[in-house]
């Protein structure tokens, strides 16, 4: 087995009790049905991944019922912690919260970070018609900011944009776009500057944000917009982290580097939707320098998660 040097920040787990609940609503996809802890570990071993920070993927936790969302979040987080305990050094957790239930989410943040010692919180790019910069999120962001927490953000197809093109799956365009919307929301509402201690990880190389950078630059030049950006645009974009899931290629990463810098790129795989080894192979062909590769493999992530340094023997 190859040396395990990678930290995967975008890796999904499927607690059996969660799967059972989801299957009652609409059967989960094949790769969700067949997920097991051992399959995750096998996939990680093949790709040289030491540790995966696991999170709950779509359809998420909230289906209009606060009590259900609280229960699902708790059972997922407890299951994640059991995985961590049973497989030391292989898993970390970005905990689920029952947002938009504010009270339940704040309680779950406390439970996850204080009791379970989770590594961060998993958010989605939008909830209904609210993207992450919306003032609804202020109480949550106050708390995450106070705790200097990691906020890992996973996309989905926003409510506006389901089933737009008959021939094209939503994941092709809409997931990336929703990440871009959430980043723009964080920046241009001023939330990113107002909560400077939250450490953001955006999925999929920032969605499509790096490609639309000229639009953002131009928007930020408008005086009344600039007034809301005390740190200016680029420093905010350059403090965020971006994972490589489904974007481990030179086309996207070249543009991302030009916007955010290679130091902000972290390894992510989207397992079990994609295999980790595909990302390793993609990165190898992406025109990255050795230093940049080491950064993406683990060094950049260790700035966010310094406690993991003892696990990486590179």
């Amino acid at each position, binding site marked *: 087995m190859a040396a395990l040097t990678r930290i995967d920040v975008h890796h999904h787990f499927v607690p059996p009790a969660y799967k059972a609940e989801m299957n009652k609503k609409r059967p989960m*996809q*094949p*790769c969700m049905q067949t997920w097991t802890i051992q399959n995750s570990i096998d996939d990680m071993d093949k790709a040289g991944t030491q540790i995966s920070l696991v999170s709950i993927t*779509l359809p998420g936790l909230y289906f209009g019922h606060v009590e259900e969302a609280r229960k699902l979040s708790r059972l997922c987080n407890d299951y994640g912690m059991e995985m961590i305990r049973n497989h030391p050094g292989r898993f970390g957790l970005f905990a689920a919260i029952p947002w938009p239930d504010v009270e339940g989410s704040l309680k779950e943040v406390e439970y996850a970070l204080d009791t379970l010692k989770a590594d961060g919180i998993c958010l989605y790019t939008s909830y209904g018609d609210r993207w992450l*910069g919306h003032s609804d999120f202020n109480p949550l962001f106050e708390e995450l900011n106070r705790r200097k927490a990691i906020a890992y953000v996973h996309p989905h197809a926003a409510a*506006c*944009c389901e089933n*737009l*093109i*008959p*021939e*094209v*799956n*939503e*994941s*092709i*365009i809409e*997931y*990336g*776009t929703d990440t*871009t*919307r959430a980043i*723009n*929301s964080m920046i241009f*509402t001023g939330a990113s500057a107002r909560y400077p201690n939250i450490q953001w990880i955006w999925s999929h190389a920032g969605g*499509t944000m*790096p*490609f*639309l*950078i*000229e*639009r953002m630059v*131009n*928007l930020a*030049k408008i005086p009344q*917009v600039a007034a809301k950006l005390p740190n200016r645009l680029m420093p905010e974009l350059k403090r965020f982290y971006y994972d490589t899931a*489904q*974007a*481990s*290629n*030179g*086309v*996207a*990463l*070249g*543009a*991302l*580097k*030009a*916007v955010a810098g290679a130091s902000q790129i972290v390894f992510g795989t989207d397992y*079990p*939707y*994609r*295999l980790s080894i*595909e990302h390793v*192979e*993609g990165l190898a*062909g992406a*025109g*990255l320098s050795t230093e940049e590769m080491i950064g993406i493999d683990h060094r950049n992530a260790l700035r966010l998660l310094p406690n993991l340094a003892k696990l990486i023997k590179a």
Partner: protein
Amino acid sequence: MAAPHRIDVHHHFVPQIYKDALITLGSACPAPGYQAPIANWSLERSLDQMDEAGIASAIVSVTTPGIHFGDDGAARKLARQCNEAGARMVADRPQRFGLFAALPLPDIDASLNEIAYALDELKADGIGLYTSYEAGGVKFLGDPAFAPLLSELDRRKALVFVHPTSCVCCSDLQPGIADAIIEYGTDTTRTIASLVFGGAAARFPHIRYIFCHAGGTMPYLIQRFVDFSGRDKAAMNAAMPNGMLHELTRFHYDLAQTAHPGSVGALRNIIPLSQILFGTDYPYGFGCADQVTRIAACGFTAAELASVDRSNALRLLPRFGTLEDRLQRPARRDEHVVEPATPSAAPARGVPTPAARDRAATEKT
């Protein structure tokens, strides 16, 4: 500055009739409405901008929100009036201006009439379409509803300039973030996906497309496109018998509002230089000369810039060629595709290849 030589394929004109229409009809339209760049546009300002930026010729088109505000009759009339106004601009200065004619879509029959009028009578240089239309729900250009239109454009081997609009799905999603920032680019990506994956791009191979803004966000999402194209093989082969990349690399892409080394580098990693065109989006943006400066910082060599600024567009619009142009050896389609955009950008990696895994079993729905 050198003698004007650039050809701007993305340049808007705003005849008075269109300004009036936006004020009277535009209130029904959610965005972007009657903005200062539209209100302040004049022929003289366009010419001044072109002179300042070394633009020899601009192919003008009507911008978003387009022609149709819910009334077919009004749309027919407005398209005709805009096209005649554009044709007068061209007649007055045939080497300075060309015209991408407007259509009263989604009214297909009226649009077929307008295509004939614009191309046969007015001798327009091409047709301007928008990325999506409201027609009993949102429809992108690959939708079967548009097949008769595309069939006619294909028969005529027409040059088709596809301008984004904020899709009906996605207007005013977030206060303070104009639709132009994210939604325009995304809608371009959607209509490219609709044309390619829906099969219309391959079925109508003679339409010569220009997509705005470096393809919206398509280049950045290329991995998703490639992976998706590797899924249902039978369906994909039927829709794209020549493969997805054949279609993507035959389209043309302008650089309006995307002249950043990262974006241009990503575009160039998948699209041959021969397909990349100079465009300004005037009167939007910060002026035509500003766009020239921005493109100059994107790592093109002098020879590459000459292709982007002029010779690539001349292959689509030969009537703007001068004697000097004709004395030069015609460039081959793929002649300049050698180097990466900038030394700092990733070397040309080409397009990611789909891995062997069964995508259908793993893709999120």
